[in-house]
């Protein structure tokens, strides 16, 4: 559990880096969906469905995975 917790922290740190880099239109991550497993980028996909399919194939333990919607803006407040 603790090990997966540290993997999650590593994945989240990499996700933040990818979001920053993805703001550059020349970045390979720009406007795409990036899959991280065990602290490494393992998938760059064009849809969330493709991202999920590939991530599951590469790392069946989802707690070691993280998905990045590079275009998403998590800094704003969403009203529900």
């Amino acid at each position, binding site marked *: 559990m603790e090990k997966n917790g540290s993997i*999650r922290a590593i994945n*989240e740190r990499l*996700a933040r880096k990818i979001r920053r880099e993805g703001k550059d239109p020349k970045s390979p991550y720009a406007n795409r969906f990036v899959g991280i497993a065990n602290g490494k980028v393992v998938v760059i996909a064009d*849809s*969330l*469905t493709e*991202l*999920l*399919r590939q*991530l599951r194939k590469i790392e069946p*333990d*989802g*707690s070691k*995975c*993280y*998905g*990045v*919607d590079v275009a*998403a*803006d*998590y800094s*704003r*407040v*969403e*009203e*529900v």
Partner: protein
Amino acid sequence: MPSAQWPLRNRRPTIEVMIPHGKRLRRRRLLADTGAGSNDSNFELVLSEADCQRFTDILLGQVQLGRAYSGWFNVYLIEVRIPRLDFAAAVPVVGVPQVPDGFDGIACFKFLNRFQYGNFGDADRFGLGS
């Protein structure tokens, strides 16, 4: 045009989605709320945090919610199906501690707007078309 329609639940518009869980599909009844989120939201459905963790453990990030919910909540990547529409896609789902009474969650505007939606001429039902 293929369509799926459901009776109103507690007099409120409802849709039903199926979510893979192991080898089975679990049904979830969602309040269809076009006022929840926007077409630009970072999530499409709201489910309980417990449900989200039951169906996936792949995180997409955290989102800050306002109005009915307040604070930061996890966003998960979950496969959702509506068999009658031949629809299956992975969508971003935000997990919250409590969902509206009588429902398993909320289908937000961004999800509903994937389809044609409305009562299709029957005031006692709500439906989606593709």
